[in-house]
């Protein structure tokens, strides 16, 4: 049970985004993909679930070659994957309950869960998932624009958790959030991965978060893998880009410490 990239290349017009990259994401691990903007982090993530196809090479999810699957086969594979997008991506016309329960009645879900859930059963699943992301059932009837951005993010994670995926892909889950909510979301990713034994792939710019919860960190630069290793290995790295990321992290930590002292 793993995700394997084999010689994957992807271009948009003349711009090469990924060049012949190969790596493996192991079952149950938290892998952070770091890099500057536009290096293909989100493209890497979207290729795992077939939202984008590689130009060359392939991605194997539990041994199945994603780009060669039919739509029906892809639907089965996708039922094991959840994705938390950069935007909360909640449907504005549905309330929190309907958003979280949305994935519980789809044909894709019915393939793996043949018993149709009653409205009561759905409600209990939704409340359970909201609790998992530290939200209460008081927001069930509220619509996305009526709750804060941080709550929308959590609701989006709850929606992803509802169909019980084996893999969750997080696309910059903390972008646009304040430091406290960022910390809370980062802790949540760690909790979910460890308690539910979910394999998590997190695309981020945030080295501090990566160092605190990742099992391994992959750094992309100019379409290639610059480094892949544990947080400890990253801390010791002498590669300039990683050193830059680390010094930025140390700078932020210093600022926080100084504010606390004041």
């Amino acid at each position: 049970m793993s995700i394997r990239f084999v010689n994957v290349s992807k271009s948009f017009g003349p711009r090469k985004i990924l060049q012949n990259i190969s790596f493996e994401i192991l079952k149950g691990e938290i892998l952070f993909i770091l890099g500057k903007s536009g290096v293909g982090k989100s493209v890497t993530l979207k290729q795992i679930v077939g939202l984008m196809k590689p130009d060359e090479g392939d991605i194997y999810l539990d041994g199945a070659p994603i780009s060669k699957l039919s739509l029906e086969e892809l639907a089965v594979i996708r039922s094991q994957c959840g994705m938390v997008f950069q935007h909360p991506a909640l449907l504005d016309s549905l309330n929190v309950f309907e958003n979280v329960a949305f994935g519980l009645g789809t044909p894709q879900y019915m393939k793996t869960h043949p018993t149709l859930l009653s409205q009561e059963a759905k409600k209990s699943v939704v409340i359970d998932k909201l609790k998992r992301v530290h939200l209460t059932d008081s927001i069930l009837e509220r619509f996305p624009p009526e709750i804060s951005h941080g709550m929308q993010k959590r609701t989006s994670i709850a929606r992803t958790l509802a169909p019980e995926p084996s893999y969750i892909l997080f696309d910059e889950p903390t972008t646009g959030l304040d430091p406290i909510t960022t910390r809370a979301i980062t802790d949540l990713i760690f909790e979910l991965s460890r308690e539910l034994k979910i394999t998590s792939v997190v695309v981020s710019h945030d080295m501090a978060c990566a160092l605190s919860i990742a099992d391994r960190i992959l750094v992309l630069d100019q379409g290639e893998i610059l480094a892949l290793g544990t947080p400890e290995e990253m801390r010791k790295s002498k590669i300039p880009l990683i050193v830059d990321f680390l010094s930025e992290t140390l700078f932020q930590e210093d600022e926080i410490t100084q504010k606390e002292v004041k």
Partner: protein
Amino acid sequence: MTLEVVLLLKKITLQMMDIFQKTLLGQIPLRKSEIVQAIVSSGIETLPIISVSTAFTGLVVTNEIAWHLHESLQSVTMMPGFTGQFVVRELGIAIPALLIVANSGASTTAEIGTMKITDQIDALTLLGIDPISFLVFPRFIASMISMSCLIVISVFITLICASAVAVLKYHFTVPEYFNATVHFIHPKDLVGALIKGVVFGAVIPIISCAYGFQCKGGAEGVGLATTNSVVTSTLTVICLDFLLTYLFTLLF
């Protein structure tokens, strides 16, 4: 219009036909609540602007026709016939269609475009929902129903306003005016109007949604997609209006 949009238009059209056929055969349940909701937003909410616009258009056109008749023939007795035919065959259809393009067509592109750039379309795909079936089909059915109803209403309002001009300014009596109008309007004109309504009603949401799905970038991308959608829909409605009118004159 890019090749990408043309291909997407083809894909959505074929998919709509397929879903329509499957729904008629009972293989797919009809999502009535979504369709009703779409009828409310594309039809009922646009009714006030369509009523006001067609009312004033009726007043203007009747005055113009009467003036020209009077100038050229020194008589306005043909006014009900000319006005009636013009309203039922063209004006009562084109004005609501163009207003629907500007109103609900633009809002559909903006809504789907925003969903696209905020990852909602990808989220639907990952949850196993086909975004085209889910988002386009209710709008497609609702738009055809709304457009047909709006055409009937706008024709009625335009004729009422035309009769008001005829009665108040050109001294027709109400029965005189309506008898003359009815004499010139044939069932085939009404059938033609409804066919045009259904065709425009089908085309507008397909174009609006296609541009929404092709939306890229941020707010600027949504604005650009909306502008392109309105321009393409307007041109398509005008061209189709000509083609259908030409076809009807050959057939009837």
